[in-house]
């Protein structure tokens, strides 16, 4: 019978190590790894294509060049038209968005506390979620008249269902262990929802808020195209519609560009920042 032996190996001499353990990336590689840089390159490319096509076509009534559009955008921003119109749109959007979120919160809290509430939420979301909010506008005009009331109504419709649906499915997927931890501390009712369920389901809630925002923004601009003037001050959709009637196509493009820029700003800066500081920091979403 033998005995096991331990053979110690000498540590490798540091200087003789031919393979590099770590290599610094070059500046070009570092830049290319940055998603923001790559996307900027794509945007510059698209801008170049736009400009080239606009110049070749040479018909500002059909397709103005990029620099015409930018110039118009600059003028209209400087004379305060576009900021004012955008502000009008955003004010209405904010009203509808927050009202939709409050209603979604009430619906989902009812849904998690009673079984009939769950059934109610599931049935109602299944019915109304596929219905485009803009399809309710004619009806809203009869009920609430020309004005912000109708806009807020269709906005609520476009925000409420996706937010409620996502929040509810987020609540349902909170792990049983976390629920038991919360109850162990004697939490129940609203404090339990606020301190355990909402943070635990925050990834889903945020996804719902993003979808709700996207729906709401599109719905609002579309609704404003149908009617946009209330108390003499229209929003961005109305601005686009108005300038089309005046055949000021560069201004139409400038309006569209503003819609895109505001959309990008909210999605890529505001929601991204919230994600970075919450779900990504917590490691619950990559």
């Amino acid at each position, binding site marked *: 019978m033998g005995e096991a032996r331990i053979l110690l190996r000498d540590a490798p001499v540091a200087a003789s190590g031919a393979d590099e353990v770590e290599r610094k990336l070059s500046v070009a590689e570092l830049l290319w790894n940055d998603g923001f840089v790559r996307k900027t390159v794509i945007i510059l490319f698209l801008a170049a294509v736009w400009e080239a096509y606009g110049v070749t076509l040479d018909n500002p009534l059909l397709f103005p060049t990029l620099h015409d559009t930018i110039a118009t955008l600059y003028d209209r921003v400087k004379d305060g038209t576009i900021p004012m119109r955008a502000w009008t749109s955003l004010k209405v959007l904010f009203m509808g968005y927050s009202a939709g979120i409050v209603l979604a919160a009430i619906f989902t809290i009812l849904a998690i506390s009673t079984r009939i509430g769950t059934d109610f939420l599931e049935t109602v979301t299944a019915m109304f979620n596929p219905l485009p909010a803009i399809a309710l506008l004619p009806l809203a005009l009869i009920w609430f008249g020309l004005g912000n009331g109708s806009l807020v109504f269709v906005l609520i419709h476009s925000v409420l269902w996706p937010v409620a649906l996502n929040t509810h499915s987020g609540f349902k997927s909170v792990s049983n262990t*976390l629920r*038991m931890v919360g109850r162990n*501390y004697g939490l129940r009712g609203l404090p339990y929802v606020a301190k355990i369920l909402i943070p*635990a389901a925050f990834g889903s809630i945020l996804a719902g808020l993003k979808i709700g925002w996207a729906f709401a923004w599109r719905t609002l601009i579309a609704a404003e195209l149908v009617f946009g003037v209330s108390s003499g001050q229209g929003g961005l959709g109305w601005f686009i519609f108005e300038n089309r009637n005046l055949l000021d196509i560069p201004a139409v493009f400038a309006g569209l560009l503003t819609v895109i820029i505001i959309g990008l700003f909210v999605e890529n800066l505001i929601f991204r920042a919230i994600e970075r500081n*919450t779900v990504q920091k917590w*490691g*619950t979403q990559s």
Partner: protein
Amino acid sequence: MALLDVSGVTLRYKTSSAVVTATERVSFTVDKSDRFVLLGPSGCGKSTLLKAVGGYMSPSEGRMTIGDREIHGPGADRMMIFQEFDQLLPWKSVLANVMFPLLTARKLSRKDAEAKARAYIEKVGLTRVVDAYPHTLSGGMKQRVAIARGMAMEPDILLMDEPFAALDALTRRTCQDELLQLWSETKFTVLFVTHSIAEAIRIGNRILLLSPHPGRVKAEVVDVDKVSNEDGGAGRLEKEIHDLLFAGEATAH
């Protein structure tokens, strides 16, 4: 006067097609500073029993009291420590996780809660990662945080549901030693569930053996802390318990 008194407890739960009896007329008492282990093969209802003591389900027969109070629903006088790593709140740092029950259940001021939390985090040796978020910690560290969180509340009893079962063998061993070290410092009372005989002998001073389907008390092992590893006493006890638990099985098959 026993701290925890479980007498004649029958636990039943409903599945979609049947009512399952998890434990039948189980009685035991836990005294202050006991390290009381519930041991048995899977299906003996030991975890269900622990959940009932935690207040998550109520017995269909029998009664459970802690101190002099009957157990109705979960409460912070019985802190649960789970097997799952996701028992830490992922949106809170280690410090905030330990402070959370002190603030919400114990209603301490922020300053007192933080001082207490830091003290217990130091006890489990995690001062280094006090500001880290749970997803950056290893499994063993997460369980240590959970233990610190439970102990910081200074509950009447700590309820541990196989807290080391999901750890690798080396880490499990360290965690067991640390738990004993912590016990010798503060002499807390713990009700510990495991399916490992070796772990039961290492951790407990009393072991309740449960037989499965449904869970019934088979025996109680006392003075477990008197056996030692050196003279092979622990090994012999392990074999005896094993034979006792699986005695019926050899004839049944």
